């Protein structure tokens, strides 16, 4: 019996080790599938975050921030350098917070704009795009500290493997497409879509009602706030820009997100907007219910600037420049 | 004590229902031994036996039947109980 047991255990262990080795090989030996694709922009954003001197403004969130924000305008209004880290919600809010945290220094303002789905199910641990990021940026592994994130890695490892191996003998490039690395400007904003005509957005509902609200997201947000304010940086939470039809479809879930943040100790005070503030008509959007384009993007940016002004107005000026001047 | 034999009459009914020319039916013969005596035909055979002997069994007794010998016993019991 013991013999059988040990034999079985050794076969299983061997298989497990093989699989782990395959995953390791993919992430650490084989190159990322397409160094010009949308996700590769994470490297530029990381560099931006590292190299921009404090005090600075950092925007943390998903593609909502990438598409729907004009950082240059924010910078000229607030007179602080701006870093737009927004890229893809699939990276998971947890990773976004953890990877930003080491670079939050005294005098910084961090604007958190989590998309509503992050609060439900296990989404804030990430999905397949997290693996893209980890493949592109080896240092990213330092920020993986949760079992849940390892589960995400296991879940999508096969996909990443397949894509990587496929790219080895059939390189494709996203150059020239909107969703590519070169579509970002020097602040980290996506700008290629601004020249294009808006496409019809599929008015999909983010299916919030099917999943449970995840309290851990609030815990992680609060931990981030505590750390930042401990480093004498300010944090605020703003709502993402969202299309009217998606807002209507998921009103209950969205309201729940707002209420839970509002009533959570420590987070309520830094939530500086309501979901309705950032609802825009459907025709303002480029291709999804989160990606603004055109003048609506500017309107949204203005609202963000107003929220920032409230904060900077309350703080002692850190430089002799007059903050808030037109 | 002489064992109950399977009456010729009973044998004939069974063979006729199953469309068999000849088959050796004894007390220990069970349905699965006889070609064609499957679950679908079983009820028909029993019904035919009842019609032949002019008797009616209780369903409960029939379900417990295991072989032709027990069927014969049931028939004999009915006959004994008749006035």
């Amino acid at each position, binding site marked *: *019996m013991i*013999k*059988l*047991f040990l034999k*079985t255990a050794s*076969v*299983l262990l*061997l*298989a*497990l080790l*093989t*699989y782990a080795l*395959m995953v390791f090989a993919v992430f650490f030996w084989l190159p990322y599938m397409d160094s010009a694709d*949308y*996700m590769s922009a994470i490297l530029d954003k990381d560099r931006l975050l590292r190299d921009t001197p404090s005090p600075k403004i950092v925007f943390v969130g998903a593609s909502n921030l990438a598409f729907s924000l004009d950082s240059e305008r924010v910078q000229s209004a607030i007179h602080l350098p701006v870093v737009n880290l927004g890229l*893809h*919600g*699939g990276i998971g809010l947890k990773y976004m917070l953890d990877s930003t945290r080491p670079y939050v220094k005294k005098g910084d303002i961090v604007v958190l704009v989590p998309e509503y*789905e992050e609060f439900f*199910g*296990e*989404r804030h641990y990430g*999905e*397949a*795009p997290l693996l*893209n990021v980890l493949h592109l940026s080896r240092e990213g592994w330092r920020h993986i500290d949760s079992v849940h994130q390892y*589960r995400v890695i*296991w*879940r999508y490892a*096969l*996909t990443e493997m*397949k894509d990587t191996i496929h790219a080895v003998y059939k390189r494709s490039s996203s150059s020239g497409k909107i*969703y590519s690395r070169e579509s970002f400007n020097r602040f980290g904003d996506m700008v290629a879509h601004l020249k294009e005509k808006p496409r019809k957005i599929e008015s999909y509902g*983010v*299916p919030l009602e*099917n*999943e449970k609200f995840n309290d851990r997201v609030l815990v992680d947000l609060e931990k981030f706030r505590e750390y930042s304010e401990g480093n004498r940086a300010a944090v605020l939470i703003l709502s993402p820009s969202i299309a009217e039809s998606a807002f209507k479809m998921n009103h209950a879930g969205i309201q729940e997100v707002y209420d839970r943040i509002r009533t959570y100790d420590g987070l309520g005070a830094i939530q500086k907007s309501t979901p309705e503030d950032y609802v825009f008509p459907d025709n303002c959007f480029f291709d999804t219910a989160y990606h603004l384009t055109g003048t609506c993007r500017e309107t949204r940016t203005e609202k963000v600037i107003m929220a920032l002004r409230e904060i900077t107005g309350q703080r002692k000026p850190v430089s002799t420049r007059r903050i808030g001047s037109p | 004590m002489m064992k109950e034999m399977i009456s010729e009459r009973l044998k004939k009914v069974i063979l006729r229902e199953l469309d068999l020319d000849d088959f050796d039916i004894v007390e220990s013969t069970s349905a699965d031994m006889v070609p064609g005596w499957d*679950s*679908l035909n*079983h*009820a*028909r055979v*029993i*019904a035919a036996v*009842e019609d032949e002997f002019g008797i009616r069994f209780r*369903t*409960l007794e*029939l*379900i*417990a039947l*295991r072989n032709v010998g027990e069927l014969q016993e049931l028939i004999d019991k009915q006959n004994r109980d008749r006035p």
Partner: protein
Amino acid sequence: MPFNSLQYFLFLPSVLLLFHFTRDRWRWVVLLLGSLGFYAALGDPYLLAALATVTMTTYVLGIRIGGTRSPRGKTALLWIGIAINLLVLISMKILHSMTVTGNPSPSGIGRLDLFPATGSILAIGVSYYTIQAISYLVDIYLETGEAESHPGRFALYLSVFPKILQGPIERGRDLIPQLRSPYVFDYAGARVGMLRIAGGLFKKMVIADRLAQYVNPVYDNVHAYSGVVFIVATYLYALQIYYDFSGYTDIALGSARLFGIRLTENFRNPYTATSIADFWRRWHISFSRWILDYIFRPLQMKFRHGGTGGTAVALILTFLASGFWHGFGWGFVVWGLLHGLFLACSVYYKPHQRSIYQKLAVTAGWKSAIWQRFITFHLVCLAWIFFRANSITDAGYILTHMFTGTGKIARLLTSHERLEIWICVLSLGIMAFLYHLGNRRDKWDYLFSKPAAVRWCFYYATALYILMFGKYFSPQTFIYGKF
């Protein structure tokens, strides 16, 4: 706990080791406590109450029926036993359907997710051990079986963990003697058991759960589709439910084998059936034998003077009952009714079959066998539509829109990565190969006759395959697809 979970993966070897190293006298205690813990892990006190009720009443009644001389007394006790078990079964099902939206199902077969929305009352296992208990009592009554006097052993007969969740439904004379005989560690048997578990995991986690990805979007949202995609989804569902259920059964039988218990086979290549009657001799065998012996036979006997019509009615009623047993939803009832009707028709048709074949000059040969399998498979699929659809109206929609074009197929096939389709094809191919292999010789002997190196490669490759391609996560709606 479900068979395809980390919990079970840790539970099984722990209980097995404990069982193995316990003195023979007390082994039944280990197995019983393990089984109760296994059932309790579902987290539903109502289930334990149901099991306790069924176990205690059936145990007592079994002994009483065996000991009573008077036929009237025996009959009364039997009916009490049947009534109690049916009462438990029906009330658990009603509770279940009241707290779950959508198609209720007892063992999860209908929706193939073992755990419906949290907060609902599950009815897992109840359907199985209640009818098993009924068969136990009836067998004692008919004197084809005897009562078990050891309460622990009897409890195990009903609740031994490999079979408590989804069967097979064991007759007393098959399982109880095995529980009585002392356990002897059988290396070869244990090895086969583990391979069987691996096979079951392969079927369930690699194939069935993967096919579900394609079936669910269609059946859960019928109005977004039309045309041939319904036919494809139905074929896929036919495969899915087979691999899901037979996979689960493999894990059950394999697990039991580790404890020296041989449970009854439940599946025998069902889709190779040449008639609906043949199908039911190959699909969920323990269940169809149960309804044959305890519902059909008595009914048929009762209607014996109705000729063929009597048999036909008995069949329809039997399969109607089978539908209700699966769940109190219209889908299950129609499914059962369809099978009953198919069988009823065949009862009328069969006596004329030979003469019809002669008239059409059809000879029994491989061509007619293929034709019969084709027809049978499609009749079965037709019934599956009702079994799986979320409502009668959905099923109606599917049937009326089945032939209206091919447009949506591409959409379905591209809804997941192409890799998924390749894995499906490869895995089904492996299954087909093994089936072919199994037809010519005993699969296990073939494997074990190979040198050790070959065997170990096979074990290793199987483990790696399941590890890589198994579906370990419940489907989360994948919002953040790569653009």
